[in-house]
């Protein structure tokens, strides 16, 4: 890690936590503003059932902007998701231009509509577990996401969600 790498690493941790807050609040534009124009997003999982690495969602920044921009037109499950991330590791390149980070992730869902809102609303359960595998580009003081891979352990996703994780 470069001399100033520790400072950059702290900045990266802060950036990752900021994405959790923005996404929890469905502030998709604010989330994507933290990403470079070359950003790519993926949700992936390995399936022991079919013994294959799978991609459940993926696309460049423009695509993510497009689909999040149309969410209001969809019938979504609006039970809030809360992302609990713990940044386990940040690695900054020696030239301080690139970085990677690994974040342990648990996403909780608090039912709103649920199966029966009278009974279920307010109930919190684990929606999924996995990791964020993030890549960053660094330009002086400016740090932006260039790639986020959400690597899921969970493959039983029941109703799923329209929202990026």
């Amino acid at each position: 890690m470069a001399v100033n790498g520790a400072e950059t690493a702290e900045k990266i941790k802060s950036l990752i936590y900021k994405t959790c807050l923005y996404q929890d609040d469905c502030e998709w534009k604010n989330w994507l503003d933290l990403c470079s124009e070359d950003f790519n997003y993926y949700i992936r999982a390995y399936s022991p059932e079919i013994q294959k690495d799978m991609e459940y969602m993926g696309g460049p920044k423009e695509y993510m902007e497009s689909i999040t921009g149309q969410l209001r037109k969809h019938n979504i499950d609006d039970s809030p998701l809360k992302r609990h991330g713990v940044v386990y590791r940040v690695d900054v390149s020696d030239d301080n231009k690139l970085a990677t980070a690994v974040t342990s992730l648990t996403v909780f869902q608090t039912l709103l509509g649920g199966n029966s809102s009278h009974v279920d609303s307010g109930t919190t359960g684990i929606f999924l577990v996995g990791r964020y595998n993030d890549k960053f580009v660094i330009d002086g003081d400016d740090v932006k996401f260039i790639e986020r891979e959400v690597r899921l352990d969970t493959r039983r996703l029941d109703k799923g969600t329209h929202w990026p994780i």
Partner: protein
Amino acid sequence: MSARNHEQWNAQPILQSGEWVDSKIYSDEEIFEEELEKIWKQMWIPVCHESELKNAYDFRTMTIAREPVIVVRGKDMKVRAFLNVCPHRGNMIERRPSGSFAKSTPSGTPKTMTCMFHAWQFDMKGKCVNITRKEEGYQDRLCESDVGLRELKSEVYFGGFIWVSLNDNINQTVEEFAAGALDSLAPSVNEEPLEVFHYHKAIIDCNYKLWHDTNCEFYHDYLHYHNRITGFNDEYFARKNTGFKGGHVNVGSFEVQYENYEGFHSREELSFPHLPANQWYMIDMFPGVNFNLRGSALRSDIMTPLGPNKVMIEFRGLGLASDSPKDRKIRIDHHNSIWGPFGRNLCEDLIAVTGQGAAMQSGSESRQILHGRHENETIHDENGMRHYYEEWGRWVGRSPSYPDQPFVEPAETA
């Protein structure tokens, strides 16, 4: 009359018998148990795809009507199915969802199915090949040939899907069982080998038939913003809904206008063989299997009923085994954008049917669920569901509209 009181709410609908079902068929424990015995244990059920067992000694495990099943590929490359139950003490032989018997396990040697409990071993044809300490324990009273596995009927059919039946006496091939319902897509899925690229599962609180209904009727496209703006034209409303013998239904095709949804594109460049650009077919097989081809990606829904108000649905996505990595990536994106667990449509369907499940729980008052739309057997006609429930009535022996009464053939009621 506007809102109705209890008596009015429970009165017989104006529609004809057969144009509604009693919601008891979605919630009653006794009916559910009958369905497992009279339907699910009698039918051909596709359990996985041959690409999930590519090599000799590969296996997949699953259940049909609570019975543990294992599918293995033998040294002769033939796929066989067995009850995944050791004949010794009834333990499940293999616990993993998939894998290979080519290598040894902690209790057993390679190339055998070994029950971890007492290390009884079986070959890929289900023959018992080793009983540990046989002579000491059984002397000459029992030997390997007495304790083979229970083999199940199996076939590979329709683009490489592996079909299994618990019924030894089933007197139809899968082709005969399908009765032509699969023919519309057969050229597209049989031209070259397919490969599964996507798997995920949902376990949701609703009856399995409600998920099947949702795949049978497209009137619910009002639920889907994507489908409204990429469809809902004259060609869409002319799509035919065709019933086949055995309760199967085929929803005909039309050209989807994907580019009408911002960020989406035509699927023409990767159409399945013999499929015109951007076509979309749906085949609903009795009692709870769906094949859905949208131009470049095939989806299968295989249901495992878990209770009157609980079903597991396994979702698979398939492409061509010959896909280049670039083409596969595009095909996966096409599949996921609509049908993935984070896609535009699938979660909407699942939200809707769990709402039905919540309103029809066991013990709730019976409701009349209407299947009475007639639109010349086109896309918003509900003839597909009527056709399905007629077959359901035959197998269960109950009237779908009056489930406490015996099923009577419609012609006999005229």
